[in-house]
């Protein structure tokens, strides 16, 4: 606020507030199958579009390009993949999965055409490289979310 506005705006101030609402999320048939395979079998599933040949993970009911129904075109992917990009999260926020600093990487699993974002651990930020081979480490407690993969770490 600049100086001349000071007097005019002397009554304006800021109130701390909150916006809190309960909600739920339905993963749907396709999403549930993916999450259940992660949780119960520690398998990562994708779907393949026969028209464009792309393998999507997380799986989806419909190919966004061809509008093909992919609901039963399951393929099993490897638990390993490569880092296609990464960043280092420096700022803490209560909604984030780890305390800063941590590495958030885009990981293309073996057999997939799309990359998923996930936490990369067991490596120092300065040692992360694009193309680095990594593997999924599964969570010991089920969460029914993508965090049933606890994190990825380098294949040694």
């Amino acid at each position, binding site marked *: 606020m600049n100086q001349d506005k000071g007097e005019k705006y002397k009554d304006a101030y800021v109130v701390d507030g909150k916006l809190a609402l309960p*909600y*739920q999320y*339905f*993963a749907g*048939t396709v999403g549930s199958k993916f999450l259940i395979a992660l949780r119960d079998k520690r398998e990562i599933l994708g779907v393949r579009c026969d028209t464009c040949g792309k393998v999507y993970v997380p799986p989806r*009911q*419909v190919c*966004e390009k061809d*509008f093909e129904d992919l609901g039963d075109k399951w393929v099993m992917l490897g638990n390993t993949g490569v880092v296609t990009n990464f960043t280092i999260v420096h700022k803490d926020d209560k909604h984030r999965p780890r305390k800063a600093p941590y590495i958030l990487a885009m990981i293309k699993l073996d057999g997939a055409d799309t990359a998923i974002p996930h936490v990369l651990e067991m490596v120092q930020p300065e040692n992360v490289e694009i193309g680095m081979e990594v593997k999924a480490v599964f969570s010991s407690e089920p969460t029914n979310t993508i965090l049933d993969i606890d994190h990825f770490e380098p294949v040694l």
Partner: protein
Amino acid sequence: MAANKKNRNVAIIGIGQTQYSSHREDVNQPEMINEAVKLALQDANLTKDDIDCFMHGNMELFEMVHQPDLWHVLGTGAYGCSEFRLTTGGTTGITLVCAADNLVASGMYDIVLAVGFEKLQEGHTTGGITNMADPLWGRMLQTGALTGTCAADVINEFGEDRARRAAMKHRIIMDQHASRNPNSHRSFGLEMDQLEDLMENSPRLVGDLRLIHMCSQSDGACALIFACEKKAKELSDKPVWIRDHVTTHREETLWMYPLDLSQKEEPTHRKAPRELFERNGIDKPVEYFDVFEMYDPSSWWGMDWIREFFLLEGDEHIRMVENEDIRIEGKMPICPSGGVVSANPIGATAMVRVAEAALQIRGDAGGHQVPGDVNHALASGFGGTLWTILVMLEKELDWE
């Protein structure tokens, strides 16, 4: 006002609706949208590559997903295309219709697909709506979309017994309409002999607004395809023409209510039809229109607003309900679909009014088709702090 100032005529050439229900755990949001989009494309005999622009709409804060239009490209088919998101509260679905009409009429796009949806089970509707109020004052006071004001006004004007009976009769007729619409979320099988029991025993929500009066919270999606006159005539043998539409807003006035009721301001659901009918030269709307799909958020509003939307006076609207003129086979069929009290996926709801009115004109409404020719249809949308949108649909391109 710009009646008949369209650059070119616009028609609805494709209609797709999911079944409306209380829960859709089997699909996530883009998957549910995709069901409606595919049905609309199929209805128009088009593929997604024929669409020049996509539009997407739902309520804010209802599913707690930020930028759903991006995520939902999976379902809309907008990959690599023009896409707009609109969110205008309860009117979202019909704002999509108005905007699509404008986009095509302007010449910008020849074919536009608009989809409105909601998965109300995923969020908290009343909580979400309450967040529209001023965080420093109204948010702690507002009661979501629930209000007993309308009931209090009708009771004040027509007496407790007559008012309550008329509202409940409206509700039961809507339930019976819904039983003839396979897409409807709720149909309880209500009979007229339950009227007094429901008046006494249905749980109260706010004031005289009872649970049975209020609209449902539904999951579902609706998609419409709009085309310019040239394309519509090429592609469709039953195009439904959009003659005109009007949107009437007012400042946020949830807490404005005078002691002397003669000082009440003209509501937007009176002002909107007054302007629309005046500029289209319609003197007797009850006679002109063959069907009206009203956005009736509760049976109190549904019953009360008949007077405003048709510019009636006195108790004419109550008599229409008492005489059952609003039935599908009645003199002025209102909400053959069962209305919003029977299915309310909010971001789709107001579009469903237009979709259902268009199905009536096409003669494709199936079990809830109004008998005889349907040439002129009216659809309304309602939202937020009591604003109103009306859309007029025609079977023939013959108005001037």
